[in-house]
């Protein structure tokens, strides 16, 4: 047994397990060996250790672990204190040791195998050797053994140094890419371009290369894509097809050379590179692209080359800027680069851990951070891209960042706010360019494209062209127009006119062509005629012979006031709604082209004899209302009415703007003619032909109620009871229209309520019911008003089908087919008729869940004393805590259990008499009234008779005036005996239903 030394116990036994959930093994914690077998000594040791724990249970560092050990002491005592149990624990511990040894053996074998593979593959380089030494430590291989084995492996040959010319080709490609990406760090090395460190393995390089190649395939053509493709090709050659160490060595050499002057300066004064100088040089090396380890190595080599020593122990702990690679002390306060302001750290999207922004993957969970960091950097540069007029690139970068970071990321949202307006502005400009091109306005298109080339040069139009190429097309059209214009210069007369028109055809916005045409006046139009037409004057003329001419029409009143422009048109006809009724006017028409104008042609004077304006006729209940807009004091309005039923004509006297005719009869049809009489200058009156309208006064209809809404095959039908008069309109409203039922509504307001549905007969149809809830508002149009009906609420849910109701005693078992996706239903029932809806105040209802339905095998309703029940089942949905119901007007959603009013007949059978030898049968229900004829049948044995023919008739009851009870002597009857009452005639089953009492009464022992 090992000795117990309190001085070393904590450090050797407890400390390795402090803070972890795992405790020292049972034997280890008491410093026992597996071979220890002396029960007394074991118990003494356990007591000793326990005492020690008691003292140390409040230890500031190990108190928690010791407390747990104390709690487990009792359990340990049971296991170790009992020889048999201890033997089991020893077995388990030995098994554990065996498994651990097995694991260790396997780890050593694995390590040996890797070393052998590397030896076969050409030997070890220093980096691999360092990795293998670490692995050996982890596998528990003694360092000396591991080193000896590694020493036996030949060193891998140094790769060929990549020559300077190749490196300069790479540097040039990287510089171009860095400029394009605006990421100075990219120019440092091919590794940096891929977001990798110089010591990245081939697998990592290959993975990143593949990823970038995929992205490059997606990129749109441009310089960024071309630069990436070049860098990808170089990376393939120098990092994947060849040993990347050649490239890395070359880089290290270049950086050493770059730092040499400074190193020499540092050595010159005291023959050494002290700590401050070494750190400074290392930081510079890191800034130039080396890893801290390679930087340390480079400074050491510089010192050696210059015969100096380095007074520095370790590598610098810095974090490089992901954009410009400037190193910053890790322990400092810098969150952003002091040079370019880029964030130095990023939070892992997987676990939230803070990582260097240059890290390839998260140090906590291993999530790939490269794309994440690249996306964040790309977002930071969007502002600059927009300033450069690279809206297209900014849009692509934003889309890529959105894919990587997700649309909800705050950085994406902020960048989107910046980029989206620029993208929209570019789209708008392109739309204007398209319009100008379609209208053959190349000058305008060119202006717009010049501006687009400045603000969004890389933003393609709808056809995929960039502003520059679209501008070339516009220039071509302009050149064509200019050529035609030049040709016109040498021509005269009609030839010159045709050439100028052709130039305008090529470029409608060619101002020079327009100006030249302005100098050639068009030919005048022919004869002009003017006449009244309803509430306006109509003017017509013979067109000008000049092609492309327009016409300017002016009005001159005989009463004076000068010429008033009526309008311009390219047709030989125009209407004048502003001519003053009763005035005498003339119209002049001149042909115009550009700024050139012909001599005018003028009409004869004409009287403006207009009909009344805005004439309306509305039939009401016992009246007809006529209205119009009067033409000031001009003319006199005359109204004539014709009763279409008998042809009677009546002249009516109107007010200035209308009349209400109450001398009409509902149901008759009337024709109203409204004319205006104007005085002519000569004194003779002129009557207009008049405006005619029809009216049929009707009684005011009642508001529509009880709409029945049915869903069928994606459409909703709304059935209504057609009113005696008026026209029904059903408006679909998204919200409750909250109108008072019975109120009058101006029909003009219907469109504001919602969409009017097509109505056919007594059904309106909604072919496109909205998802969720809506309201169907019925209105009855009657004359000038719409009478508000009661709306029906509808929820677009699939309809319940196959509703069945089955009687089980005094209960009705209701079952139905649940449509897909519906898990809640409203069962509503009435005893007099079908429920009108879920809100029918006379209906009883219950909400039923699908689970409840399955558990109970349907819905059981108590019939009570009722014999009929009308059930409707509505689909339902819980929306924000409120239950909304769908419609259930379809036949399948309803069921009726209707039994004719049958009289229930119940009876009792009991034994009576002192010796129980008498049998008394009595009809208990109905208590009074006429009974059908009943027969009591007795059957020998203990099986009930099933029909009258199964036994002997023992008694007769009921019938007209017959007895309600009977008494039988059992003496003489065979026993056991089974008795049962039957309706004597089959016909009685139509009006009566017979219920047996309990079997105990019917089986006579």
């Amino acid at each position: 047994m090992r000795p117990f030394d309190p001085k070393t116990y904590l450090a050797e036994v407890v400390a390795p397990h402090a803070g972890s959930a795992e405790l020292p093994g049972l034997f280890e914690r008491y410093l026992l060996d597996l071979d220890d077998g002396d029960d007394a000594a074991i118990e003494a040791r356990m007591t000793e250790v326990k005492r020690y724990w008691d003292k140390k249970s409040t230890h500031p560092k190990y108190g928690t672990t010791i407390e747990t050990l104390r709690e487990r002491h009792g359990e340990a005592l049971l296991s170790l204190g009992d020889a048999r149990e201890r033997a089991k624990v020893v077995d388990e511990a030995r098994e554990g040791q065996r498994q651990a040894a097995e694991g260790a053996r396997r780890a050593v074998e694995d390590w040996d195998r890797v070393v052998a593979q590397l030896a076969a593959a050409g030997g070890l380089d220093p980096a691999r050797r360092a990795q293998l030494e670490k692995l050996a430590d982890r596998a528990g291989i003694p360092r000396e053994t591991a080193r000896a084995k590694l020493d036996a492996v030949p060193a891998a040959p140094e790769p060929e140094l990549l020559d300077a010319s190749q490196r300069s080709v790479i540097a040039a490609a990287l510089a171009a890419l860095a400029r394009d990406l605006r990421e100075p760090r990219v120019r440092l090395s091919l590794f940096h371009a891929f977001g990798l460190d110089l010591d990245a393995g081939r697998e990592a390089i290959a993975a990143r290369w593949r990823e970038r190649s995929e992205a490059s395939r997606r990129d749109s053509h441009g310089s960024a894509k071309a630069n990436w493709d070049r860098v990808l090709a170089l990376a393939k050659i120098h990092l994947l097809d060849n040993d990347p160490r050649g490239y890395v060595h070359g880089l290290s050499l270049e950086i050493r050379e770059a730092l040499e002057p400074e190193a020499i300066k540092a050595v010159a004064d005291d023959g050494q590179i002290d700590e401050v100088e070494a750190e400074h040089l290392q930081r510079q090396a890191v800034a130039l692209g080396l890893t801290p380890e390679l930087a340390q190595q480079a400074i050491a080599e510089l010192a050696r080359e210059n015969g100096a020593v380095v007074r520095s122990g370790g590598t610098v702990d810095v974090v490089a800027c992901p954009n410009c690679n400037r190193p910053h002390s890790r322990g400092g306060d810098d969150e952003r680069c002091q040079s370019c302001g880029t964030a130095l750290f990023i939070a892992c999207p997987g676990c939230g851990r803070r990582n260097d922004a240059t890290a390839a993957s998260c140090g906590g969970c291993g999530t790939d951070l490269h794309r994440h960091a690249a996306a964040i950097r790309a977002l930071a540069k969007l502002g600059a891209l927009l300033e450069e007029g690279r809206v297209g690139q900014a849009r692509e970068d934003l889309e890529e960042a959105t894919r990587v970071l997700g649309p909800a990321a705050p950085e994406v949202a902020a960048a989107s706010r910046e980029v989206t307006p620029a993208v929209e502005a570019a789209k708008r400009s392109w739309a204007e360019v398209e319009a100008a091109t379609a209208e053959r306005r190349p000058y305008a298109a060119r202006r717009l494209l010049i501006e687009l080339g400045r603000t969004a040069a890389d933003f393609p139009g709808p056809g995929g062209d960039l502003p520059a190429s679209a501008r070339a097309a516009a220039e071509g059209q302009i050149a064509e127009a200019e050529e035609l214009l030049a040709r016109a210069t040498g021509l005269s007369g009609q030839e010159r006119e045709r050439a100028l028109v052709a130039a305008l055809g090529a470029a409608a916005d060619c101002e020079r062509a327009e100006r030249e045409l302005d100098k050639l006046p068009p030919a005048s139009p022919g004869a002009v005629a003017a006449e009244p037409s309803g509430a306006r004057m109509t003017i017509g003329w013979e067109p000008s012979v000049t092609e492309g001419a327009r016409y300017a029409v002016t009005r001159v009143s005989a009463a004076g006031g000068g010429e008033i422009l009526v309008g311009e048109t390219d047709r030989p006809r125009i209407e004048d709604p502003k001519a003053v009724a009763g005035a005498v006017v003339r119209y002049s028409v001149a042909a115009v082209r550009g700024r050139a104008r012909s001599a005018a042609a003028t009409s004869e004077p004409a009287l403006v004899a207009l009909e009344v304006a805005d004439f309306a006729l509305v039939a009401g209940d016992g009246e007809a209302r006529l209205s119009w807009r009067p033409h000031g004091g001009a003319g006199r309005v005359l109204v004539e009415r014709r009763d279409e039923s008998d042809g009677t004509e009546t002249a009516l006297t109107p007010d200035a703007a209308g009349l209400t005719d109450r001398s009409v009869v509902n149901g008759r049809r009337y024709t109203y003619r409204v004319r205006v009489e104007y005085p002519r200058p000569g004194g003779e009156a002129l009557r207009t032909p008049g405006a005619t309208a029809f009216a049929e006064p009707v009684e005011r209809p009642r508001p529509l109620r009880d709409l029945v809404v049915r869903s069928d095959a994606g459409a909703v039908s709304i059935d209504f009871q057609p009113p005696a008069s008026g026209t029904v309109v059903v408006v679909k409203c998204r919200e409750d229209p909250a109108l008072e039922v019975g109120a009058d509504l101006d029909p003009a307001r219907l469109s504001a309520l919602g969409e009017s549905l097509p109505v056919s007969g007594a059904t309106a149809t909604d072919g496109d019911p909205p998802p969720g809830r809506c309201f169907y508002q019925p209105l009855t149009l009657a004359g000038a008003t719409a009478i508000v009906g009661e709306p029906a609420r509808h929820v677009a849910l699939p309809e319940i089908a196959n509703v069945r109701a089955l009687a089980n005693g005094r209960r009705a078992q209701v079952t139905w087919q649940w449509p897909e996706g519906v898990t809640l239903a409203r069962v509503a029932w009435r005893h007099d008729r079908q429920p009108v809806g879920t809100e029918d105040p006379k209906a009883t209802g219950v909400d039923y869940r699908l689970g409840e339905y399955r558990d109970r095998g349907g819905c059981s309703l108590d019939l009570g004393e009722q014999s009929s029940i009308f059930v409707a089942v509505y689909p339902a949905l819980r929306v924000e805590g409120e239950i909304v119901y769908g419609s259930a007007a379809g036949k399948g959603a309803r069921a009726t259990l209707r039994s004719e009013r049958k009289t229930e007949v119940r009876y009792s059978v009991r034994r009576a008499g002192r010796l129980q030898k008498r049998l008394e049968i009595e009809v208990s229900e109905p208590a009074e009234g006429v009974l059908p004829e009943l027969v009591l049948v007795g059957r020998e044995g203990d099986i009930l008779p099933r029909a009258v023919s199964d036994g002997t008739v023992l008694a007769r009851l009921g019938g007209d005036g017959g007895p309600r009870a009977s008494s039988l002597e059992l003496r003489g009857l065979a026993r056991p005996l089974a008795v049962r009452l039957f309706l004597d005639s089959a016909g009685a089953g139509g009006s009566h239903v017979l219920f047996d009492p309990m079997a105990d009464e019917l089986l006579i022992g």
Partner: protein
Amino acid sequence: MARPRTVLCPYCFEPWSTKLAAFRCTSGDAARCPRQPDEPQGRLRGTEPPLAPRVLQRQGRLGQAFAVKRGSPVRCECGAPARPVCPSCHSDLPQRFAEAPSRSMGLIGTKAAGKSNFIAVALHELEHRVGPRFDGSLMLLDDATRDRVDRELMPRLYREGAVLEATRSARGDATVRAPLVARLTLGAGGESSQSNLVFFDSAGEDLQSLDVLEREARYITQSHGLILLLDPLQIQAVRDELGGSVELPEASADAYTMLGRVSGLIREARGIPAGKPIDAPLAIAVSKFDAVRPLLPEGHAVFALPSHDGRFDPQVARSISAAVRSDLGGWLGERFDSFVKQEFSEFAYFGVSALGASPVDGRLPNGVAPLRVEDPVLWMLDAWGAIPGR
């Protein structure tokens, strides 16, 4: 509650005294606990003895042999814990199986009588409707039962709304011999009663052949009670009366013959002499009762009498039995009833419908709406004295 004195294994149907218990080592390490040929398992399966971890026997006071202290599992000599198995056939026993009396119900009936649907719906009703009304609960006891009920029977019937497929014959598939084992607890507190219900579902054709019945359906001879499911649509008189109003199944062997074979087997297995009735209760349940409703008077007891709502009402059971017995007498003649009376000391008739309506193309558009499907089970529990307060 007192532990039972004997327990019937639901797999080999051998009863054993609860003085005896057996446990099988759970060690997965064959090196530590060498595998041994398991003769009883081989006998049960009809195969070579499989190699399995060792089985330990333990003896204790009556009812205590299987008792295990909480947190101190029975361990094999190799140190690994051991789980309870049947001392006779070494099949794994459902959890805490020996703590409650086992009552097995054998379900027999002709082909397409609706036996599987009946069992599935009866279990559902006991769990969801009857159990709660009797302050009780139903717990499925073993993995095979849970798998079959939760993954096969219930989803098909209650989620998909499709009737169950015909049970495979035990001749072709040994897994169908596995029973459905559930523990039904009725009542609460000191009044409660627990029963391990073991339902056997057999393919109808297995019950129609004497040799197959002898070989594959031996459990019937050991069942504590039998439910005979009678399909009325296979009775000629009913078929004639209904005419073409409902879709009729193919008529199978008659129930009378089947019951004769079963009772003969039981007598033989239990050594009951002719003239002495079999003491296991027999529930004769007329299935698909909804389909024969048009042939019955409007006030028929099956439809008119209340269900056993939280209390088993023997008067109601007797009245329904009398009415259905009378109907069956009319359809089958008195021969059937006479035979039942002669062969079984305790019997009753029932009218049930597991599905509540005839399926349409194998589907139940309105789901399962059972009718009195729990009645035979409750009656049998009552006959066994397993309903508290009765």
